[in-house]
């Protein structure tokens, strides 16, 4: 068992995504969505609509649309989400985060069902994304986010009036053939008297993603450990105090 280290983990959303090399047809997607209703009582049909406009000199502009139908399944309390697109299988968990063991177990349950119904599909990408929001209380006009977060923009001293920021880094994780996309940004806080900062970690393997379940699960567990290590390096001891570590 892996213990979630904090009583109040700042995770607002955890996501595991499997992307396929070829799309699954709409009727089969609808069939599996229907089969998963026992686990997810709510189902909504969603559409990804893309509009493309073509402008050619001396010709009438033309428009084309691409519609991608999908299914969004969710639990009664709306914290457990399963998103089925023709090319993606996505398991998502909103706060309160129940810990990796429970989240991963749900992924395995739904993935097994998917495999039973759909069969083998070539996987083109495996990704794990954790969006963390750090709510920092303030009493004065300035929030010293540098006391809580280690990833923020490095600005010349002439800039003294920072009202918001967003930085992004892509880092190769060579030991696991993965790319980390790290977003750190300020956002409006849903709490009064707080400023909020996002640390969004997306780790994905799209170079040579494993194709069998055993290797897939192993990779996901390795990504999870790496994600924890990276997150801890992105925050300071003062931030950890906000999340109330269990040993306190």
């Amino acid at each position, binding site marked *: 068992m892996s213990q979630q280290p904090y009583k*109040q*983990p*700042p*995770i*607002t*959303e955890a*996501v595991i995504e499997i992307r396929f090399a070829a799309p699954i047809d709409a009727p089969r997607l609808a069939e599996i969505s229907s089969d998963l209703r026992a686990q997810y009582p*709510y189902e*909504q*049909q*969603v559409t990804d609509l893309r509009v493309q406009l073509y402008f050619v000199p001396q010709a009438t502009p033309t428009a084309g649309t691409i519609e991608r139908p999908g299914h*969004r399944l*969710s639990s009664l*309390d*709306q*914290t457990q*989400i399963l*998103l089925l697109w023709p090319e993606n299988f*996505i398991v*998502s968990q*909103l*706060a*309160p*985060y129940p810990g990796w063991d429970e989240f991963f177990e749900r992924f395995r349950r739904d993935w097994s069902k998917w495999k039973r119904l759909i069969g083998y599909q070539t996987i083109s990408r495996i990704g794990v*994304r954790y*969006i963390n*929001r750090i*709510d920092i209380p*303030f009493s004065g*006009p*300035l*929030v*010293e*986010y*540098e*006391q809580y977060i280690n990833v923020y923009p490095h*600005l010349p001293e002439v*800039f*003294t*009036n*920072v*009202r*918001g*920021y*967003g930085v*992004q880094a892509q880092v190769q994780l060579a030991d696991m053939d993965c790319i980390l*996309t790290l*977003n750190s*940004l*300020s*956002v*409006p*806080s*849903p*709490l*009064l*008297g707080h*400023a*909020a900062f996002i640390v969004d970690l997306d780790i994905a393997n799209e170079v040579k993603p494993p194709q069998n379940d055993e290797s897939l699960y192993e990779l996901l567990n390795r990504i999870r450990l790496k994600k924890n290590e990276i997150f801890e390096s992105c925050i300071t001891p003062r931030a950890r105090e906000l*999340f109330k570590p269990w040993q306190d």
Partner: protein
Amino acid sequence: MAGLVLGSPIGGNTMNWRMGAELQPAFSTETKRIVEWVDRLRRPSPASLRSQASGRPLEARVFDALAAAKTLTARVAMHLDRETRDKLFSQLDSLHETEQWEAGDEPVNPSSFETFLKAILTISPARRPGLGLSHTGDLVAAWTTGRDRLTIEFLPNDRVRWVLARYQDDGEPDRFAGQVEVSRLVQGLAPHRPEHWFSNESSQQSPR
């Protein structure tokens, strides 16, 4: 140490990295490609997908409103204990049993619910309020201690309206009302000693 200067809103829309349509012709193909690339990196999360509520039957609108309220709660769930969250969801579900509704009644307005969450997380009342819905879908919370009553209506866009009645020794109630931004609710109620309603001692005086 630089720090973030607090304005209103914090970080507003500063994270929109898309180019304005009017600026498109000014940039090279390469620049546009880079902007598209950056934009692709900022994929929306699965929870952000929503269906459209307008013009749909009541049942669908109720579903969407409840789902939106529960998703909004998830945004702050790390600051709520499990029991409080479960009780809140049970109250919300109960409020949305539409058999007793009248024509024109609306499900909870997500903006009102957002105001409610901000207020409740700031006040942290030991006693949970009874909840109701206004005709237009604004959430209303009420605390009663004996005959004394405090009612707060949570309006969209961070506004709150409150009314209280407190009975005096002569048997007549003093009534007060106010409407403020949610960030000033605590100061607005302070002169009226709101712990009379919010604390557990008050419930022992008069169980509801």
